[in-house]
């Protein structure tokens, strides 16, 4: 009972504090003077003047608070006279107050002129050389000083959220491709499982393509032995050996038998670690010791049991279900993509240039790093910069557009992601990666992971809602993503069967 009461009281006081803050903001909103002018598309320049009265009032509050626990030599704590405290801590308090005033007056100004800003503002700061620069608000407050007399005046630039009207959200035309899982697809899946369980078995006779060869290799450059190694495992297909790729290894080895020797000549590439050897010809003398071939297990009870099924029919059934689920999600994603495309195409808006520029720069930088990591020389990458930029611009513009559209729809339709849903999604990620829930959450919350996860969930939710309202037309869809995949699977299956036949042959040979 008693607890309850104190709890109530606490709530009451916290409410009061909240009111005070609100009051403060409203007062500041009244007090400040704002003038707004255009500075480019969706960009405004705000000049904010905080009158001296407001500054003084805040200063008084600050010092009164500070006086209560200021430690000045010669005085007990809290007993020093105000004048002395002001003199001693004036600079610090001023710096603090300026930071506080700039941010709070900016917020008040935004409310006063009624704009929807995007991100943090940039503040004009006069540097020592006399020229003015735009700096982020965090840096600006470090340089700003509280004026000893008169009002505090500063100007900042801010980007606005684009204003636009949403297109019709009901009856969005969506095509639903009709694809089903055939027995061939299931067979392909089973074949993949079988090949995963395959083992390399030694065989007599000639080497065929993709066989595994155990061999002794001697590498010579310019007649000099550089490297000598025994029992190297090589596959009879293009291979990389000690960082040199031997493209024609497959053809050279094919048809050879154990104890045969072959030599391969390769020109060493420009990325080889030893500078002196770059561009020279390397000679590999390969002596075959052993030939091994993959043996794919037949679809027997053992395999079925290992995969965790009771019998073949059940296995096929399960595989089919899994494939259908996957197909379903692919189709659903496709339909969501169609809605996204509809939305971006039907909406017209101007994008804030600064923000999209920043985003594009980020994307271009990332692509460049990717190319560099893929081994493209830097000069080559620089040549493609324009191309990359053009591509990135296009992507970013649609991405940003979709972002704004989604935000507006979420606001209009009052769609939000609850904490439980977010936690659920995190838990499922944790489950997939085999990590603990809190670790995944910590990792996500370090970067922007949590935010993007939230956005993703929200967008999915919106698109699902739109999908229920959409006008779905069924189309025969042999040319969507999934059938292509299925076709690939089919090819694989054929290859596997060919292999199977081969391995059967080799079985006969070995017996």
């Amino acid at each position, binding site marked *: 009972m008693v607890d309850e009461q104190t709890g109530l009281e606490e709530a009451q006081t916290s409410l009061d504090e909240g009111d005070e803050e609100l009051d403060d903001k409203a007062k500041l909103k009244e007090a400040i003077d704002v003038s707004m002018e255009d500075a480019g598309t969706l960009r405004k320049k705000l000049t904010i003047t905080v009158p001296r009265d407001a500054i003084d009032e805040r200063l008084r509050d600050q010092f009164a608070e500070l006086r209560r626990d200021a430690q000045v030599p*010669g*005085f*007990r704590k809290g007993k*020093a*006279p105000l004048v002395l405290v002001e*003199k001693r801590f004036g600079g610090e308090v001023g710096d603090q107050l300026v930071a506080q005033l700039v941010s709070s007056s900016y917020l008040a100004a935004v409310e006063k002129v009624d704009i929807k800003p995007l991100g943090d503002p940039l503040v004009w700061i006069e540097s020592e050389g006399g020229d003015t620069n735009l700096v982020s608000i965090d840096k600006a407050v470090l340089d700003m000083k509280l004026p000893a007399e008169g009002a505090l005046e500063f100007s900042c630039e801010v980007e606005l959220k684009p204003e636009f009207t949403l297109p019709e959200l009901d009856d969005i035309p969506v095509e639903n491709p009709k694809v089903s899982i055939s027995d061939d697809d299931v067979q392909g899946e089973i074949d993949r499982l079988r090949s995963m369980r395959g083992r390399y078995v030694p065989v007599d006779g000639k080497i065929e393509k993709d066989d595994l060869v155990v061999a002794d290799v001697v590498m010579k450059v310019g007649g000099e032995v550089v490297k000598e190694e025994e029992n190297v495992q090589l596959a009879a297909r293009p291979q990389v050996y000690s960082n040199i790729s031997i493209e024609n290894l497959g053809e050279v080895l094919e048809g050879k038998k154990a104890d045969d020797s072959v030599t391969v000549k390769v020109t060493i590439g420009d990325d080889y670690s030893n500078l002196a050897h770059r561009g020279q010809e390397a000679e590999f003398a390969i002596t075959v010791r052993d030939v091994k071939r993959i043996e794919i297990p037949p679809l027997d009870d053992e395999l079925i049991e290992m995969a965790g099924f009771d019998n073949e029919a059940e296995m096929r059934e399960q595989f089919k279900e899994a494939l259908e689920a996957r197909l379903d999600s692919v189709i659903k994603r496709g339909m969501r993509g169609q809605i996204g495309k509809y939305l971006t195409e039907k909406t017209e808006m101007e994008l804030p240039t600064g923000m999209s520029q920043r985003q594009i720069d980020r994307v271009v930088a990332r692509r460049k790093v990717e190319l560099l990591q893929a081994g493209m020389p830097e000069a080559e990458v620089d040549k493609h910069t324009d191309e990359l930029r053009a591509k990135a611009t296009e992507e970013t513009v649609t991405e940003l557009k979709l972002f704004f559209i989604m935000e507006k729809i979420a606001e209009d339709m009052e769609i939000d992601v609850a904490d439980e849903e977010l936690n659920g999604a995190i838990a499922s990620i944790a489950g997939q990666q085999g990590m603990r829930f809190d670790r995944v959450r910590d990792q996500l919350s370090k970067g922007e992971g949590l935010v993007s996860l939230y956005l993703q969930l929200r967008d999915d939710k919106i698109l699902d809602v739109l999908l229920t309202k959409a006008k779905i037309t069924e189309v025969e869809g042999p040319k969507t993503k999934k059938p292509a995949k299925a076709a690939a699977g089919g090819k694989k299956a054929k290859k596997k069967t060919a292999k199977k036949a081969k391995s059967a042959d080799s079985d006969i040979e070995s017996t």
Partner: protein
Amino acid sequence: MDIFHIIKRPLVTEKGTHQAGKHYEATRTKAARGGAYTFEVHPEASKPTIRQAIEKIYNVRVVTVRTANCLGKARRVRLSKGTTRAWKKAVVVLDANSHIDLF
């Protein structure tokens, strides 16, 4: 002795500020500003020299000067004994029309 050697420094303390604010009654004149201010002074300075020095430095009228010799406190670091320095304190009572800005 130079007047700036006589007056070493004003003492800005809680007690001192209290006296500075309240002690005008000690002047036995009409309530105005005045007050008593505390200084550390040269140990050999006398009351008249302190009065002169204060009147000259701060351009005020002094009513009374009270002095006190503050003996150094005994200190010991391990086995070596010693004392902190001894110093002289002066409380200067100002005329009601005078005032010193200490901070």
